[in-house]
């Protein structure tokens, strides 16, 4: 019971601190969005703007994330949760 109350107090304190930040959420300035929306299709040729970002403008991040996936698969196969 004491553990539950202590965890609840911790979480509520964290929530009070984060609430201050959450109340300040506002729309971001639209200059970057205007660039993607107006010029995205003619520069990458893709109708899907999200694809044109993560495969066209920022393909390097996608490459890094492919490496992370590869490492995770290799890690799971090495650790072999099923065998003794």
């Amino acid at each position, binding site marked *: 019971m004491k553990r539950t109350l202590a965890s609840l107090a911790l979480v509520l304190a*964290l929530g009070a601190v984060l609430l201050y930040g959450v109340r300040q*959420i506002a729309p*971001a300035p639209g200059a*970057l*969005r205007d660039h993607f929306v107006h010029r995205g299709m003619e520069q990458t040729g893709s109708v899907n703007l999200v694809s044109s970002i993560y495969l066209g403008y920022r393909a390097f991040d996608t490459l890094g994330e492919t490496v992370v996936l590869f490492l995770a698969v290799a890690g799971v196969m090495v650790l072999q949760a099923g065998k003794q």
Partner: protein
Amino acid sequence: MAPYLILALFLLGIWGLVRKDNLIKKVIALNIVNSALIVLFVYMGSLSGSTAPILVERLHPGEGLRRLADIVDPLPQALMLTDIVIGICLTALALTLAARIYRRFGTLDIRRLEKAAAQDDGAPPPASPEGGSRPDDGQSGE
């Protein structure tokens, strides 16, 4: 209204991470925290517009008018795609490690794991339990 719900989801995940004793439940709570953050980013991007960032006017010309300024910011959505895959990788590795810990120590309860790890001296793992008895997996410390 939506930011407060996202905050509630995040705090729910943190509470599960702190309070639950089972390793698998901690991994699930981590996943909930990850999902809350993804939804928060996509929500903050959606404040700049009202329709999806796909230029359907090029595919089907003449189908519905819409100003280009009404399109939602596509950048947070593209970044969160990467985040989702990294969440999958984290969960896969964490669950594999949890399975290895279970095979090594016979329990998933962190209280017992603390004691068992303190006395750990690299001895061979205990004999696996028979098929009849159910091994304990931290039901007591919920």
